[in-house]
């Protein structure tokens, strides 16, 4: 009898451990109790909003998912739960997840030359797909937005010379370093990946591929992805979705590419995303495969000292962020309109960890 009870208890424990919460059409909610740590997080993320000078931290959305449930959610400015907010460069990591599905379908290998899928790269035969994913194509690209508008490659790509065919504009850049050796953040590299996807999946399937491959399986309904004049997705910059929808991509990554019973992204793909890239040139960031990590290639601590080493993120202009902390079961979406550099990722991660799981001041 005792043995039977023991077995039963063991069974119940193992079942509840395996029971994971997943969002259906809506997320389930389990709001965190209000306490000092939550107040500290709020006063950091939502100070009085300065609309006149646009200075300081200006959070549009802060959504925290703990073990698959919404535990904290607040919006600022004109952004609401149903606003498809511009993600800027978070688009790059979303694109990586779209590519992950294509990778699982066997449509390409990481070592394939870009030229196989994007012929204008015949002039750069040594650049491989994995080099683009590491932002290490070696192309002579200038990523500054506001501070060097005259020779900024990204401004020209989005708004002037490049906008007709953004991938081709990227291909026309010269070489600054050997492909695959040096990290040099480039929206052009991401845009070329978006163009290569067209050949990988075929012209007909391409226009809806992000939806059929990724968004629909995850239940994402709010997405917009703008294109250039040739119909190529602006993979570097122009994906939009609600905070709640972006969190679905975070949860997919937190659970290593698995969505409920389906391994949507191969584990090998997620491993590639989360492996630090070893760059010959020194960098302040810790880039992985189109995601940002908190561990460097030589095993040192990454840029967010108050967050666990397994933290990773998708980051965008003006303070957009999707943070994932698998060891804490956390996904955090932060949308913003920060026009200066006062926002600090580490500070937000520290306060959010403390508010939700009572950690962060270690």
């Amino acid at each position, binding site marked *: 009898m005792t043995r039977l009870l023991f077995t039963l208890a063991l069974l119940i424990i193992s079942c509840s451990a395996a029971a994971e919460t997943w969002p259906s059409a809506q997320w389930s909610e389990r709001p965190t109790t209000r306490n000092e740590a939550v107040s500290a997080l709020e006063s950091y993320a939502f100070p009085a909003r300065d609309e006149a000078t646009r200075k300081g931290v200006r959070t549009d959305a802060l959504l925290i998912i703990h073990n698959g449930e919404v535990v904290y959610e607040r919006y600022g400015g004109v952004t609401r739960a149903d*606003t498809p907010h*511009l993600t800027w460069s978070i688009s790059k990591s979303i694109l990586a997840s779209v590519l992950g599905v294509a990778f699982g379908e066997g449509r390409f290998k990481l070592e394939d030359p870009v030229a196989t899928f994007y012929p204008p790269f015949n002039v750069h035969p040594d650049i491989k797909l994995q080099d683009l994913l590491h932002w290490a194509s070696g192309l002579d690209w200038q990523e500054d937005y506001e501070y060097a*508008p005259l020779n900024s490659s990204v401004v*020209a790509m989005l*708004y002037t010379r490049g906008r007709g065919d953004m991938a081709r504009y990227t291909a026309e850049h010269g070489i600054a370093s050997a492909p695959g050796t040096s990290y040099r953040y480039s929206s052009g590299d991401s845009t070329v990946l978006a163009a290569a996807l067209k050949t990988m999946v075929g012209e007909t399937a391409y226009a809806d591929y992000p939806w059929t491959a990724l968004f629909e399986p995850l239940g994402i309904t709010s997405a917009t992805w703008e294109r*250039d*004049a040739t119909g190529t997705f602006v993979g570097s910059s122009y994906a*939009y979705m609600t905070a709640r929808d972006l969190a679905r991509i975070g949860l997919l990554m937190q659970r290593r590419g698995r969505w409920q019973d389906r391994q949507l992204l191969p584990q090998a793909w997620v491993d590639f995303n989360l492996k630090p890239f070893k760059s010959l040139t020194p960098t302040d960031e810790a880039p992985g495969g189109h995601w940002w990590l908190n561990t460097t290639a030589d095993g040192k601590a990454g840029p967010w000292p108050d967050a666990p080493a397994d933290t990773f993120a998708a980051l965008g202009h003006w303070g957009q962020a999707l943070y994932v902390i698998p060891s804490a079961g956390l996904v955090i979406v932060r949308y913003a309109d920060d026009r200066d550099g006062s926002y600090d990722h580490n500070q937000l991660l520290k306060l959010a960890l403390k508010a939700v799981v009572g950690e962060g001041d270690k």
Partner: protein
Amino acid sequence: MNARKSFIRRRPFSSLVLLLLVIIAGLIWNWRVQLQVFPSIISAYTAKEYCSCRFVMNAPVEYCHSYVKQWLPSTVDEDSLNKRITATGLGRGSAAQWEGPRQGCRLLPPVP
């Protein structure tokens, strides 16, 4: 060589001005493509981002005006019926068009 030296000696200031002019001309030539398209940045940025602000993010008019505001003056004209935005700045004009719920906004030709 002697003749040039003496010219520099006789006219040191004119020589300096001439040298500066040559350098400036060289820089302009070097940056000619960038300089030619540069003025379009303001109107293109304004038209595209205002269009997306209004028709993709569904934000109010006043908010989107302040959202696209830059340090250089620009104007925005909204055709809400056709979801089309025209903007001007630095003497150039650009137009953006909303194309659908999945496609969002795109700048219209010609490419500068």
